[in-house]
């Protein structure tokens, strides 16, 4: 029989306001196995833990039940506390009477009753707990960063600088990501490529970093410290070792002039050849053949690039290659894109080339962009005089079909940036910004926005635009209302810039599934804890960096990238990881050797061996299941598949769960 101590936490008033803590203590005192029960204001506090330790020593407790917040919050704390007092940490169970009781119920009597039941279930479970010992698994000292934008670059550099090897997998031909498309950055207005390019070069040259560009993650298996990742290196059709990056092939590609292949990098504002580098500073500076559009691949004729390449680097025969690499940690830095604007017919984005998105405006204002940095309308190449910016296009929408429910966070700032940059170059431009709210929390952010208003006289109007109507004269009629002045506005504009909502890169869903990392309704990766573990995924060994986790600007991205790197470094610095002791275990006397469990094990942790058994005196050789505890992650799939009950899960055993059911139903 266990000697169980029950500790009920008030959590200030968080629990005590709705749960009669004293009453819980009185009622659970009588449960089988309980020898001690008490309450305390904050069980997780130093003093609270001290109380637990004292009780363990004084009453010789063999098991603890803590009635407090979610075990996801403090189970670790209390386990460590038990360990301090010499008790096996797995003799602790937490009854969640805060998140699953006091916080959701109002009626005190009802909440108290429920708290008692939850405590009873935990007590019943502890009665069946057995001391468990953590195992150890080795750590592969290499990290994988998925995504080569600023988030991935920064994470990789930080990890590499700490002395660990890092691989970056980028699906585009070059690293650089969205930031490489930007012209200037807020709130300092410094040139994006001026700060990004050096980092890209550094990545390329860093001895600890391996780049897999034009590559994708194909398959992930394993677990923290020991991931096996298949990376598909798509055929570039250009020999990496031979290519000098001279660019001759791109210049000579016949499709460069006559083809109609929109440049992804320039958001379709200009065309590119079939063999191309996305942009001049691309890293690696090796072109790639777009096989879908290339005449040679379509018809077998042409071959101009291969002929003119001075170093004979073009290789049409190249095949996709799959490499399998072992990693200890994986960082997801898959970044973002902007939403599709098809749903917003009222803004005429698909109707008029002069209605553009902000990211297109970045390209239009960039000296290396399609217009050489000269702001012009795509319809008639004239410089726009009146420019209207529309904020929150697709952000802050109520329903899925309208757009995204969240604030995209960066639009207010980049719009102010755009307005000022335009005014700087072309001071006689009239700029109107229609906004719902101007949101500028951040260092020097509001000052930046005020500068746009006060210094540059950008006209900010509160009121969402209702409609943009292309006019026969080529201008755009913008219909809006000034809510503060109470007027309806119908104004003509030469160009309309839409601050389209951002969304996580659509590829992230597939990657999250492979990694078994969870994602939220908006496809942003979920962090292990919103406040306390913001750069970790709930899945051990998976870390989050950049926009993949949520909207953020460049400085935030860079800080998060660094934070993720630190977490990775912390992991890789260990030679061994403690493994979860809650693993499956096979009772060899009950095992039939039927292999059903092995068929459902996602980790290949179950093997079969012929072993000599002594079944109450009956000695024979039997084929029985054996669990490799280093591989087993404790999901328990095998236990429900096993018909005889031979396979059981430590810490969540069949009898433990059954007894919890019984306790709840009592």
């Amino acid at each position: 029989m266990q000697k169980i101590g029950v500790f009920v936490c008030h959590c200030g008033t968080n629990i005590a306001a709705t749960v009669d803590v004293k009453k819980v203590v009185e009622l659970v005192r009588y449960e089988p196995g309980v020898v001690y029960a008490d309450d305390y204001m904050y069980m997780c506090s130093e003093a609270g833990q001290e109380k637990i330790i004292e009780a363990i020593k004084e009453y010789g407790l063999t098991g603890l039940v803590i009635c407090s917040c979610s075990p996801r919050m403090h189970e670790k704390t209390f386990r460590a506390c038990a360990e301090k007092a010499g008790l096996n940490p797995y003799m602790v169970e937490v009854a969640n009477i805060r998140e699953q009781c006091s916080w959701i119920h109002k009626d005190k009597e009802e909440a108290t009753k429920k708290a008692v039941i939850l405590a009873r279930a935990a007590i019943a479970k502890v009665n069946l707990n057995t001391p468990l010992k953590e195992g150890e698994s080795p750590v592969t000292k290499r990290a994988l960063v998925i995504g080569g934008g600023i988030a991935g670059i920064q994470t990789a550099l930080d990890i590499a600088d700490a002395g660990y090897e890092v691989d970056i997998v980028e699906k585009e031909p070059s690293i650089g990501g969205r930031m490489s498309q930007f012209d200037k950055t807020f709130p300092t207005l410094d040139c994006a490529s001026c700060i990004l390019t050096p980092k890209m070069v550094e990545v390329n040259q860093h001895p600890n970093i391996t780049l897999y560009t034009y590559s994708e993650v194909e398959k992930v298996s394993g677990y923290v410290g020991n991931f096996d990742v298949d990376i598909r290196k798509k055929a570039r059709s250009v020999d990496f070792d031979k290519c000098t990056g001279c660019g001759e092939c791109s210049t000579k590609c016949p499709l460069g002039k006559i083809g109609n292949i929109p440049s992804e990098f320039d958001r379709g504002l200009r065309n590119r050849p079939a063999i191309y580098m996305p942009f001049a500073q691309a890293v690696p500076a090796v072109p790639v053949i777009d096989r879908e559009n290339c005449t040679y691949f379509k018809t077998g004729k042409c071959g101009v690039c291969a002929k003119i390449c001075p170093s004979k680097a073009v290789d049409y025969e190249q095949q996709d290659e799959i490499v399998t690499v072992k990693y200890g940690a994986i960082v997801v830095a898959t970044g973002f894109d902007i939403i599709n604007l098809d749903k917003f017919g009222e803004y005429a984005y698909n109707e008029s080339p002069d209605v553009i998105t902000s990211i297109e405006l970045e390209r239009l204002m960039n000296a290396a962009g399609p217009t050489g940095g000269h702001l012009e309308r795509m319809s008639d190449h004239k410089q726009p005089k009146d420019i209207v910016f529309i904020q929150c296009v697709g952000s802050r929408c109520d329903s899925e079909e309208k757009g995204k429910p969240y604030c995209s966070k960066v639009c207010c700032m980049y719009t102010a940036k755009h307005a000022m940059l335009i005014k700087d170059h072309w001071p006689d431009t009239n700029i109107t910004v229609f906004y719902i709210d101007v949101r500028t929390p951040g260092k020097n952010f509001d000052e930046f926005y005020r500068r746009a208003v006060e210094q540059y006289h950008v006209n900010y109007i509160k009121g969402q635009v209702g409609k943009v109507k292309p006019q026969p004269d080529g201008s755009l009629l913008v219909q809006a209302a000034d809510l503060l002045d109470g007027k309806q506005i119908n104004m003509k504009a030469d160009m309309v810039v839409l601050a389209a909502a951002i969304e996580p890169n659509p590829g992230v869903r597939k990657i999250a599934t492979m990694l078994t990392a969870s994602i939220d309704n908006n496809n942003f990766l979920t962090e292990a804890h919103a406040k306390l573990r913001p750069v970790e995924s709930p899945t051990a060994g998976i870390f989050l960096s950049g926009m993949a986790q949520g909207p953020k600007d460049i400085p935030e991205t860079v800080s998060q990238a660094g934070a993720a790197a630190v977490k990775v470094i912390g992991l890789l610095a260990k030679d061994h990881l403690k493994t979860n002791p809650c693993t499956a275990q096979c009772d060899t006397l009950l095992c039939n050797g039927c292999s059903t469990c092995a068929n459902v094990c996602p980790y290949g942790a179950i093997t079969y061996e012929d072993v000599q058994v002594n079944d109450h005196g009956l000695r024979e050789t039997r084929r029985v299941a054996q669990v490799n505890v280093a591989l087993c992650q404790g999901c328990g799939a095998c236990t429900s598949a096993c018909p005889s009950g031979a396979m059981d899960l430590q810490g969540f055993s069949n009898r433990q769960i059954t007894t919890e059911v019984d306790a709840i139903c009592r």
Partner: protein
Amino acid sequence: MYSISKENLNSLYSAIAGSYDLFMPIKAAGQTNYGFWTEGAEGDIDTLKTIKSGKDAFFPQVEQLYTVNREIVPADVAAGDDAEKAADTPVRTKLKVNPVKLVDNDFVIFGMRPCDVRAIEVMDNVFLTDPVDNYYKSRREHGIVVALACHEPEESCFCTIFDIDPADPSKAKADVATWVIDGKLYWKPITEKGEALTAKIASVFEDDADADSKITNEISYIEGIAKQLPNADLSLEGWGAGKTDEKFKSEVWDKVYKGCLGCGTCTFVCPTCQCYDIKDYTTKDGIQRYRCWDSCMYSDFTLMAGGQNRQTQLQRFRQRFMHKLVYYPTNNDGMFMCVGCGRCVEKCPQSLNIVKVIKAFAENK
């Protein structure tokens, strides 16, 4: 002699049920088993053998013995008057045992065949000898057995080898003997209990002057049939008291047990098997302790923590038949623990049965 036409049996049942609980063969979902008769239930005395025997009447398959509840002794009570001590006194809990009430109302077991009536004697030897089983005893005291003659014995029957007369229940230790002949039930009280019962329900009967001659004819007809049955000549030579060593060590067991599945069909349909297990069922605040039939054919029969029960099916198989044909007779003046009802002959999934065992030993002498 009392008689009642078969069409009016329901009024007989009603009359009995008016004063007693009536336990009798009832047809439900296509099968006939003993159960308590209530208005609307389909009493069935034509089916020769109920699937389970009627032993449930005295030794139910599941029977609650008592319940145990935990009572809380509050700290202050546990500590007595010493209030200061109370704070440090651990709370105690006390177990409270609540026995179930023993059966105290008379009930009637109607339609028991002579073999099953003999089986009651077999069980009496177990449950009514020291130590007496109170649960069984109370039922025996309050149960009134109405035996029914077999009309058409079947090929699986072999009661005659145990000197049971299927045709004449008045020879059996029943309280009332009955026959069904040509659409009429004839009723003959034997014991005082039987008389008392008869007195209470006499109004439903009519008198039949030819009863005695009809019954005599029926008895001789059935006895004639019984002689023709394939196992009528089965010999029990070599079995019985004192044969333990000889039979236990026999090599024949190894040959006969192999088909055995280790299910409990034979034991559960058997009128004489009386092994049981006692288990606890946890309820809301305590446990219910109940006993239920167990089968020596089960691998977990008498299993204890050390695991030292019978390990192989051979051992279990041997145990069942040794018990019936050797151990029991040894302890009970040669009485066999089998009444030849033939239920196991009919129901064994693998067609193994006591007859085959007896024959196998005879062949391998």
